[in-house]
Each structure stands twice: as C-alpha cells, then as structure tokens.
C-alpha cells in the first residue's frame, strides 16, 4: 500500500479530474478518487465543490469507501446543508443494518453532521440505537446524545433522550455505562437544569461496580464524575474511598490522577483522628511518586498537580523530596516544576541535601533554570532559618563565578535575606559592591541600590556609588528611578553633611525633568518632608520595615480548594480556574453551574469595563462572582500597548455597599505587550458607604506605570446575598405582616418555563431561600427570604401558574427607600 501518492497531485485542473474519477464506473477507481479528495482535504484545500459527486459514492457495500465518504461528509456538510440532506436516507437505512458495526457507524457519523435539517431525521434512529440489543451500538448512541445536545439542546430534552441516557447508567455493559456517564457529565455542565446526573447512593454503587470492569478511559469518566458527588456522611465517603483506592495501581496515569482527585476531595469529609484517614494519606504518596517515572509530558502534568497537593496537604510527600531532584536530561519544563516542589518541601530535616542540589543546578546551562535555582537558594534561606547562613555563603560562592545573570539573580535574593534577617549578614555588602558595574537588569540594579541606601552608614563610598547611577537617571526603568530616589534620601538622612548636593540633584531630576507622575509625586513628598521637618522625614523614610513572609507565591486558599477539585484537568496544569481559560464555562461545581438563567446572562460574560483606547493600551474586562461565601471581582488585564506595564494598583470609590478589595492587585510580574493576566480579587463590604445611582454602581481607579485610569461598572446584586439568609418560618410570618404595604413592590417575570421546585432550587443557589410553599387555586406560591451583606432582609412571594410562563412576584422589605431600588435590580 502506498497511499502517499495521493498527497502529490498536479495542481491545475485537479478538481475537474477528480470529478471525472468520482463518476467513474469502476468501483476501485472511485475509491481511489475519494482517497485523493480526503488527502486534499487534509492539507487544507477546498474540495467542497465535489460534494454531490462524493455523496454519490455513499451507496456502497464497501465499508472502507463508506467510511471515507462519511469523513468527507462530516467536514463539508455544514457548508452544503441542502446537499447533505441527500445523505440522510442512506444513514437511516444503515441504522437498520443487520451488522452492528454498520449501525453504530451510521449513528456515530450522523451525530457529527451538524446540520439542523439532518438532526430532525436523527431522532428516530437514535432512539432505536439507544435500545439496541448490541452494546457496541448502545455505547455509540450514548455519545451521540451528547453530540445532539451540542447542536440542539432543546430537542434532546423534548425527545426524552436525557431519560434514556440516565437509564443507560444501569446498563449491563460497563462501557455503555461509562459513555453514558461521560455524556451526562458534559451535558450537565452546560445545562441549566440541575441534578441531571442524579447521583444517589444507588447510582454511585452502579458506577463503582462498572469502575472495576470498564476500559481505562471509561474508568476516567467514572472517576471524574464521582469526584462531583457529595457523600451524605463519613461512612459513605469512606466506603467510596475504599473502592476507589485500588485504581491507584492502574498503569494509566490519568486513572491514577482522577482517583487521587476523588480521594483528596473525600479526605475532607473523614475524621482526622480515624485510622482510615492516616492509612489513606499513606496510600496516596507511592502512586504520586510513580507518576514521575512516566513519559515527560505526563510527568509535567503530574508535577503541576503535585504542586497543588503539596500546598494542600504537605504531609503526603514530605518524606519524598529526593524524587524531585532534577536529572541532567530532564526536559526543561520538568526541571522547573521539580525545582518549585523542592522548595515547597524544603525543611530543616532535608535542607543540607536540598542546598547541595541547588548549588549544582546553579552551574547548569539553561539560563531560566539557573536563575530559578539561585532564587530557590534565597527562598530556602528565608524559609528555613537554620540554613540562612549556609545559603548566604553559597550565594557568595555563586557571585564569585562572575556569571552575569547568576550574580544579578543572587543580589536580588540577598536583598530579601537582608530584609528577613536584619543586622546579620551585612558584612558581605563589600563583596556585593564589587559587582556593581556588571548589573544591567532593572531588578538587580534596584536591589543593589536599595541595599546601598539601606546600609549607607556602613558603606564608606555610598555617595559615590549612588552618584554613579544618577548619571543615566532618565534611561533607567521607573522601578530603578524610584528606588534610587528613596536610596539617596535615606543616604542624606544618614549623612546629611556630605550629600546635600546629591539629594538636590536627584530631587530636581525627579520633580522637574520627569514625566512620570509617580516619580514626581514621590519627589515632591520627599522634598517637602525634608524642607519642613527633617525629624519626621527620618521617622517616615527610615521607619522599621515589616518582616517579609516565609512562603512566597502560595496559591490563595479558595483557589487552591477549587483547583484540587480539578486535579488532572487543564485547570490544574494552568493553576487557573476553568472560567479563566474556557469560554462560557461555569465551573464544574454543580451549584455554580446552575445560576439562575437571567442572572447567568447577567454576569457570566466578561464585560469590557475599560477599553484599550481609553487607557493607553490597557484593557480590563471583568465580572463579579460569589464563591464559597466570598465575593470576587474576576478580571482579565490585557496589555495592548507596545511597552510593558508594571506597578499595578486598584482603588474603589465609596459605594452603596461599602465594597473594597481585601488584597492588593495580585499582579507581581510585569505585563508584557500582548500578554494578558486573569486575576480574581477578593472583596469585602467593610469599606465606607455612600449611596450611588444606580445603587449597584461601582467606580474604580486602576493605576499602572503609565497612568491612572477610571471606569465604572455595575455589581450584580446577587453577590451580596449571604449564605445565612434563611429566615425562621415564624419570624418570616411576623415580619411579613409587620411590613407596611407601601414598602411592597409587585412585578412580573416573563418567559420563565420552570416549575416551582426548579425555581426554588435555582434561587437557593443564589442564596435566595424558600421558606414555605403553598398551593392556592392551582397556583404555586413560594415564600422566600434573602439577606444582604449589610444585614437588610428582603422577603418575597412568588406566584407561579402552571402553563403560564409569566410569574407574579411581590417583594417586601423592612428597610427604607434604599431597598426599593434594590428589589428592582434583583430580577
């Protein structure tokens, strides 16, 4: 067989020739022609004009030819929907074929032809195939339901395919079960209807049985689905864990990681003092280590996940630091990840070994790796106090090598060591100063300048050193300029007599010759401080600095918990929640996926708050969310300018709910041109309050190295609904009566096709709680309560008439006019 000849075709008149060949009388010739068409399609040529001729070849008893035609159909049907109809008959016929392989092939291919008109014809054959006697056909049909759902979700629901799919979970064949689980999981992710998978102990038992018998891939689908289940008590959690642990010995690393995910999640539910808890922890470590003997790509995925696991439960791998030692021939991406984990596991017990390794790495070839190794030595010094001295001497050895980037990196980390252990290692400053000339990176220059300024009293020629930097002041980066300004002011406060000229020089450079507002502002502040009150100036500039923290770049705990739920997936590789890189994703958390339809539209889409044209190239898009009782502002920063951006900060104007950010903007590295960063800013409502119009308006100021920008956005109100907003029944009754009628508001919700239970379920996910439900004259009445972060209660009555998509709602609240507007916004 030499099919490669199909790839080499003469250019001119090719289509014409193919057309002729496709209509050739001989079957063999036609097959050859179709092969050529597929080859052309593969390399990206447009062969869609041959559609009718290729479809003509479909009526054949030659399976190979049939498959080729199907492949063509899947590619081009969408561009030729009318022609695609021609194929329908043949599909429907094939679905009745006595050969199960042909039946399955037909139903599989039909699902891939994404043409609305065809999907109508697909329903009947699919229904039959879902109940086919042959498991091969059933397992194919199960996946086909997911395909159809992707094209037309409503149709799948109307035709009752979801129920058929759910029935397949009880199928006798494990592979059918696995595919049904996979299809249901995918559908439930995008489906507004909650509880699609209906995980109950009975179903879980079926899944666990199938787990032992199905293919490796099926095991992955089932384990990933199991990890979304919430066991009702610790006994159930333990019994599931017991049946999942054998999977840790599977040869397929994805099976192992998915099993680890289930166990890591369920561990939370087990009592910490039980024997089983300890045993389980012990069982987790060997399989994680084994993953590192796999192929490099799997090692990489494993290491990214281990990085999370080590942060969540350091005890699992604390004994295993040796397996993370870097091998000379590891690919660079494995090396960098191993290094990261080594630092996390470094402790007093193993620090000697770790340091010896790091020193070895610092002499390797790859620049990034070497830099990271040097930085790691610094982090060891900060993390393990007993090792600080050894780390410093290792760093000094490295500085002696005079390798430019090693020296620069070492100086940056030494600054941090000085901050952590003041008055201990300053004797090495002289050595550092020797390398002043070789520093050409802003980070290193700034670090060195900081050191000189901070310890100016111990360095005889500090003024000369700083003066040498001053010469090219305007060519320096802002970071260096700012540090230099502060350093010279420090120097002046320590040695006022000799340095007056110098300080005047730098102040005038900063205030008069610079366009940078930050630099100017800082310059003016110093200037005024120094000229009015030198004593206060000393207190301000030379004040004691807070100690720096031991652990750097830890993942924020709520994000870490979320990522643990995504072990093995891309989210765990990127260390980002899925909604940061998946379009229209609502997370796999069932609850967060079931946001009320109206609200979903309202905030799941990132809105562009600050267009790049208005902010000198910085674009900010964002949304608000509430996760596990905390509010977040999720934003994407995109740098569309030509220069890099640093020094980000954010500030909110006073607003109706007192919303303020609880942490500074977590952007630590410069944002390069065309780079984007996704951040999640935790918020709280303890800030100053001022009524805004509209009520949920929020005015934001964002600053970066270029300028300060302002924008305003609307906060969806549902993020203010707190988790304990469920009012006691009695209290509800009393309060309802007490609120005067003028505080009541009536409204209608239109076009909402849901029944009372699903509505209340959905509302509950947004912390709107149903207190009571009553049926009056065929109408469902729901009584609900919710509480805002500022303590205001809102009570509601919701009337639902079956068959009438418009709901009538009544809302009452005990607060003032303030709340009126609020209610308007909720729906």
């Amino acid at each position, binding site marked *: *067989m*030499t*099919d490669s000849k199909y*790839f080499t075709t003469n250019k001119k008149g090719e289509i014409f020739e193919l057309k002729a060949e496709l209509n050739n009388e001989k079957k063999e010739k036609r097959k050859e022609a179709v092969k050529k068409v*597929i080859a052309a399609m*593969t390399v*990206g040529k447009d062969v869609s004009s041959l559609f009718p001729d290729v479809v003509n070849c479909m009526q054949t008893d030659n*399976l*190979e030819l*049939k*498959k*080729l035609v199907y*492949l063509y159909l899947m590619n081009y049907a969408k561009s030729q929907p009318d022609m695609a109809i021609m194929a329908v008959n043949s599909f429907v016929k094939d679905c009745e074929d006595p050969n199960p392989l042909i039946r399955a092939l037909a139903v*599989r291919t039909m699902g891939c032809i994404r043409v609305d008109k065809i999907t109508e014809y697909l329903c009947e054959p699919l229904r039959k195939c879902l109940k086919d006697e*042959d498991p*091969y056909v059933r397992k*194919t049909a199960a996946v086909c339901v997911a395909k159809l759902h*992707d094209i037309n979700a409503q149709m799948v629901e109307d035709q009752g395919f979801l129920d058929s799919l759910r029935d397949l979970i009880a199928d006798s*064949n*494990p*592979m059918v079960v696995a*595919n049904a689980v*996979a299809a249901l999981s*995918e559908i439930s992710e995008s489906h507004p209807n909650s509880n699609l998978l209906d995980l109950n102990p009975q179903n879980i038992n079926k899944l666990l049985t199938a787990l*032992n018998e199905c*293919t490796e*891939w099926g095991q*992955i689908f089932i384990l990933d689905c199991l990890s979304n289940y919430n066991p009702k008590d610790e006994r159930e959690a333990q019994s599931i864990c017991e*049946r999942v642990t*054998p999977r840790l*010995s*599977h*040869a*397929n*690393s*994805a099976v*192992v*990681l998915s099993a680890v995910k289930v166990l890591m999640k369920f561990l939370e539910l087990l009592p910490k003092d039980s024997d089983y808890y300890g045993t389980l922890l012990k069982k987790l470590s*060997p*399989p994680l280590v084994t993953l590192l*003997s796999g192929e*490099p*790509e*799997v090692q*990489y*995925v494993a290491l990214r996940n281990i990085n999370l696991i080590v942060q969540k439960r350091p005890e699992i791998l604390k004994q295993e630091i*040796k397996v993370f*030692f870097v*091998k*000379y021939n590891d690919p*660079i991406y494995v090396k960098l990840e191993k290094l990261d984990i080594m630092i996390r596991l470094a402790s007093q017990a193993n620090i000697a*070994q770790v340091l010896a390794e790091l020193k*070895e790495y610092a002499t390797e070839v790859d620049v990034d790796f070497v830099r990271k190794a040097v930085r790691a030595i610094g982090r060891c010094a900060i993390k393990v106090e007993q090792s600080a001295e050894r780390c410093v001497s290792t760093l000094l050895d490295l500085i002696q090598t*005079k*390798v430019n980037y090693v020296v620069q990196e070492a100086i940056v980390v030494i600054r941090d060591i000085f901050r952590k252990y003041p008055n201990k290692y300053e004797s090495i400053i002289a050595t550092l100063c020797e390398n002043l000339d070789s520093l050409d990176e802003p980070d290193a220059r700034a670090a060195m300048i900081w050191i000189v300024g901070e310890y100016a009293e111990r360095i005889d020629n500090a003024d000369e050193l700083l003066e040498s930097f001053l010469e090219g002041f305007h060519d320096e980066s802002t970071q260096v300029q700012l540090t230099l300004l502060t350093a010279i002011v420090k120097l002046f406060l320590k040695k006022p007599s000799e340095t007056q000229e110098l300080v005047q020089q730098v102040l005038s450079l900063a205030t008069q010759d610079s366009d940078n507002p930050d630099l100017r502002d800082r310059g003016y502040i110093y200037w005024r401080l120094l000229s009015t009150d030198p004593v206060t100036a000393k207190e301000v500039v030379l004040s004691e600095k807070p100690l720096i923290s031991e652990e750097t770049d830890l993942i924020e705990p709520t994000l870490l918990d979320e990522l643990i739920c995504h072990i*093995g997936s*891309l989210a765990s590789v990127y260390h980002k929640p899925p909604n940061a*890189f998946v*379009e229209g*994703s609502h997370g796999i958390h069932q609850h967060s996926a079931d946001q009320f339809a109206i609200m979903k539209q309202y905030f799941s889409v990132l809105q562009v708050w600050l267009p790049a044209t208005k902010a000198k190239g910085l674009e900010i898009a964002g949304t608000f969310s509430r996760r596990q009782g905390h509010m977040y502002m999720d934003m994407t920063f995109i740098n569309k300018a030509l220069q890099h951006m640093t020094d980000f900060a954010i500030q909110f104007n006073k607003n109706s709910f007192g919303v303020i950010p609880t942490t500074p903007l977590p952007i630590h590295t410069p944002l390069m041109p065309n780079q984007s960063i996704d951040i999640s800013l935790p918020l709280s409502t303890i800030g100053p309050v001022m009524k805004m119009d509209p009520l949920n308006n929020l005015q934001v100021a964002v600053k970066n190295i270029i300028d300060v920008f302002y924008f305003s956005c609307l906060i969806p109100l549902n993020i203010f609904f707190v988790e304990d907003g469920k009012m006691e029944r009695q209290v509800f009754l009393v309060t309802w009566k007490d609120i005067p009628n003028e505080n009541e508001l009536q409204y209608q919700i239109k076009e909402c096709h849901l029944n009372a239970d699903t509505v209340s379920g959905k509302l509950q996910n947004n912390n709107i709680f149903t207190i009571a439900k009553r049926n009056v004259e065929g109408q469902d009445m729901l009584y609900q309560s919710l509480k805002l972060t500022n303590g205001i209660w809102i009570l509601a009555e919701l009337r639902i008439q079956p068959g009438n998509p418009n709901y009538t709602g009544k809302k009452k609240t005990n607060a003032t006019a303030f709340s009126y507007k609020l209610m308007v916004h909720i729906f």
Partner: protein
Amino acid sequence: MIGGLFIYNHKGEVLISRVYRDDIGRNAVDAFRVNVIHARQQVRSPVTNIARTSFFHVKRSNIWLAAVTKQNVNAAMVFEFLYKMCDVMTAYFGKISEENIKNNFVLIYELLDEILDFGYPQNSETGALKTFITQQGIKSQHHTKEEQSQITSQVTGQIGWRREGIKYRRNELFLDVLESVNLLMSPQGQVLSAHVSGRVVMKSYLSGMPECKFGMNDKIVIDKQGKGGTADDAGKSELGGSGKQSIAIDDCTFHQCVRLSKFDSERSISFIPPDGEYELMRYRTTKDIILPFRVIPLVREVGRTKLEVKVVIKSNFKPSLLAQKIEVRIPTPLNTSGVQVICMKGKAKYKASENAIVWKIKRMAGMKESQISAEIELLPTNDKKKWARPPISMNFEVPFAPSGLKVRYLKVFEPKLNYSDHDVIKWVRYIGRSGIYETRC
C-alpha cells in the same frame, strides 16, 4: 473533551487532521504550526494555550502529534491517549514516520474515527481493533452474525483485550523481568538517589481464556505467609540465591487485565492475559538496590589549558555473572582541542561532536575493576563562565534484577480446555539495564 487531533511533519505540514468539535476551526491547525513548531524559541511546555485554545503535543522522531481543545479536559488523559495512539499506529504499520503516515492515512482516519468519538477515547486495545479495522473493507462484510457479535462484545466487553477461541498446539509463556537501575552519586561516592523501575513483560501463547496468577518475592506477601510458618517458603527463597529473601516494593501499577480490587485486598495478582506480548506490571523499588557498577571519578585542572581525568569503574556482583554493553561517557569542555586516552580494557574514543570521551567495554565479570585516564587539552578562552561539568554517565546490561525481584510462580488455569498448569512451558529471564546512571564529578 478533545476537540481535534492533528499530525504534522517536522516542517509543520499537516499529514492528518481530524476535528471532533465545532469550536475548533481550521485556523487551529495553523496556530499550532506558527506558535509551536515554527516558534523562534523552543517551546517550554507540552501544553500551550493560544487564544483560549489549548494544544497538547508529543513528538515521535520528527513527527508532531497535537490534540486540541477549548474545554477544561483531563490533561493526563489527553497525553495518555496520544501515547496510546502512537502505540496503536506502531502496532499497525511500524515506525511512526512521515512516509508511513502518508502511506496509511486512510487507515489512520479509520482508527481515529473508532478510538475517539466526539473527543472521548474509546477502546483502543490493538488486539480488539485488529479484529475489525483491517483495511480490507469488503472482507468485514462477510463476517457471520456470530462473528460480528463476537467482535462487538469484545470491543465493549469486560475482557476487551482478548478474543475467545484462541488455540495453540503448544501452550507456552515467556516472562521477562526488565529493570532499569537509576543512580545519582556525588563525587565522593555518596548515593544521592537511587531507584529501580522495573517492568514484567509477558509473552503468552495460551489457548482459550486462561486464568493466571503471578507471584513474586514481595515482602508483604512473604511476611504474611511467614507468619503462617511454612518451612517450605524459606527453602525456596534460599534457592533463589541472591541471599535476599524478599523485597520491598514501593509501588506498582498493572495492565488493565489485572484485577486491581483483588490486589488491593489480598495482594494477589490474578488476570486473564492478552494474547501475545504485553506489559503485565511496572514497579518501583528504592531499598537495598544492588548497584552493579561504581564509578570513581578524579578530575584535575592543570592550569587553564589542561585537564586530567581518571575514572575507575568497579563491578559489584557475583564473579560468575557477566555484564555486557558497558559504556562510560565522560563529558569534555566545549573548548577541548585534543584528547589522549589510555584505558586498561575495551576501547575509548574522544567524540568531538558529542563533547565526550566514550569508553566501551564488551564484557566484564563481577568483582572486577578497570580504569581509564585521559589528558584533555583546552583552547584558551576569554569566557568567564566556568565549565558546568556535566555528570559522568554509564550504560550497561546485567543478567539479574538489581532490585532483587524473583518470580516465584506463574500458575495457569483453563478449566474449559484440557491442559493443566504443568503442560504449559514457561520461561523466565532477568535483565537489568542502566537507566540514568550518573556520577557527578
């Protein structure tokens, strides 16, 4: 799930492109070529995110396989699938090369249609696939009804890796215990890390659906039996000869034919094997490893233009055994101008293109010692950076298992056919190879 799968040659031309999901467009094919294959800098991760689309890639010789998705897929699964895809292709047409892929593109499309449905991996055991993806379309039409249902029940069944009705005149099986021993040693001879990763590869030519049970000198099993106090076991392990009675296995993983729940509860390894060759288990040990060779390096810098290197290797196993294919690789600086070597045994050569002295010895018995010394002349450079001194690495092959693992039994039961465990001819072989076996200097 996987949205599409592309195969490229080294130039970045697409050889195979199969799209499973609507969210993946044709431009994804080009995005990967431009940003990964043609990237100016070598890509530093096997997962790349380009415009909210994630690309997973593996490379086999100069062929790129890339899986594409826009969803939060199971990343480990995608890579495992790509490896599996490579295995399947190799099983069908041998080496993965541009020529072979072009020659078999129709077959590859057929396979991709079968083993990946809407981006969900399906049964991908070659044993099962070969029963119905044959590239002889007409023939499969003539399957009888029984044959057809046999195929489908095998593809979807509990024992998807073996078909019914296999017959051999002679029932025979081969067990290979293949170990790779890994070492990182400091210049002073301190073991920084050492582990053995082993595989038990089985070739089975057995009739019917045989039930097998595999036993080895696993410490946990032996200790359990030891409590029972059978003198029989003690006698057996003495015959083993290595002096070690049992070994501690850190962790092991099994082929999907092994019943994992049974291993978890009883630590017994029972299974119905696939036909032909497959990997039964993988394991890892770190305790009491027999390190077959010890490398003692001595590097002396004589001035700025000369290096003296002396390396001694010592074999550390029974004198009656022979190690083979021994190779010691001593790295040399980039500015090496000339090398003189003297070695007691074997042949040594300076290979300028590899920046190393390669010393080869065909055979070496246990408890022996050999030595090489070399003088390396250096060109004077003004490069301030010191030479990084990569570690000295070693390759070899020894006829025993450095972990100390011994096969105790492999029992075969096939109740339906008339052959018993005694009629099966069994062969066991141990091979220990060097993995990454390095000594820093």
